[in-house]
């Protein structure tokens, strides 16, 4: 069990290319995040979840679907930790392994409107499902 947890955490580090131990817990990512209030696990907490090998909570987190990939945390992180990449790696684990996606084709029609750019659909599909 615990070795599985460890593997999951290592997988996150591998996919993201992030070393969570570089974090000094300054909170600048959370200070900078435009989605902060929508997130259950806050950007700065992602690092400790990976260090504590609690990937389970991460992949079940609402935050995965609230991150905008705006890279503000990546840009401003003074330790080059790039929390946004950790969040994306967790999101990847969900859409890759469980076939558990955040967007199903059935719900698309009601989300559409005449002005909606193609780019939005393409991007959302890339982020939300495999």
């Amino acid at each position: 069990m615990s070795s599985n947890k460890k593997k999951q955490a290592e997988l996150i580090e591998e996919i993201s290319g992030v070393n969570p131990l570089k974090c000094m817990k300054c909170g600048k990512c959370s200070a900078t995040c435009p989605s902060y209030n929508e997130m259950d696990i806050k950007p700065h907490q992602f690092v400790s979840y990976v260090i504590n090998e609690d990937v389970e909570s991460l992949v079940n987190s609402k935050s995965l679907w609230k991150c905008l990939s705006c890279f503000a945390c990546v840009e401003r992180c003074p330790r080059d930790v790039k929390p946004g990449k950790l969040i994306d790696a967790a999101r990847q684990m969900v859409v890759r392994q469980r076939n558990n996606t955040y967007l199903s084709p059935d719900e698309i029609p009601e989300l559409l409107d005449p002005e909606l750019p193609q780019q939005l659909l393409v991007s959302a599909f890339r982020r939300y499902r495999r």
Partner: protein
Amino acid sequence: MKYSYYPGCTLRTKAKDLDDYARASARVLGFELEEVEDWQCCGGVYPLGTDEIATKLSSVRALNAAKEKNQELVTICSACHHVIKRVNDDMKNVEDICTRANNYMELDTPYKGETKVLHYLEVLRDRVGFDELKKKVVNPLKGKKIGAYYGCLLLRPGKLLEFDNPENPKIMEDFIRAIGAEPVIYPYRNECCGGYISLKEKDMAKSMCDKITESAEGFGADMLITACPLCMYNLNKSSAKKIPVYYFTELLAEALGVKEVQAS
């Protein structure tokens, strides 16, 4: 001067204006945009995972096509620019990605990030020059106070995009000056519009765009300009917004006197 040109999906559909005005203006400014043959959609978002290869191949194909023509590759849409520029950086600097992508591509000569990727605004700044642009303006947009909306994708991560100072950019402001208008600097110009979140979390995107438009209006902007169709879409959904949003190429075409020609 001829450039390879990657329009991307939205400039062929919902954002035709953005494309048309860019081409018309290019003719006046003395450069040509030669569309990459059989280009494929970039995917809209850069795949962050270090093990993502297949999702980057469409960008590699466009990049390689430009390389084979020995041309620089020009983009307009912020998302396409972001994706292609970053994939190019991977091909140049990340050996593992480069090798694996080339294994798929089976090119005669492997692609190793040789192509230079330029955003249309960079062509105006670095190739045409804003001073030259200014000379070609026949219809200066005098008295207009314009807020540049950069969003995230053109600027961040600053180290890779190398577009401008990500926290205090000036390329769009210089552009606004060159077409005879007055730039309005407001602090939310590099904050996110919500991006793809607006498909499912419409309220989140709306509240972000409200902050942006309120800030721009508060500092006295009459209008906003953007390079990105998704930013345009999201900003237009802002409930607080009282000012219009234009593609930067539309104002460029107007200043160069080719807007009407284009519309007809």
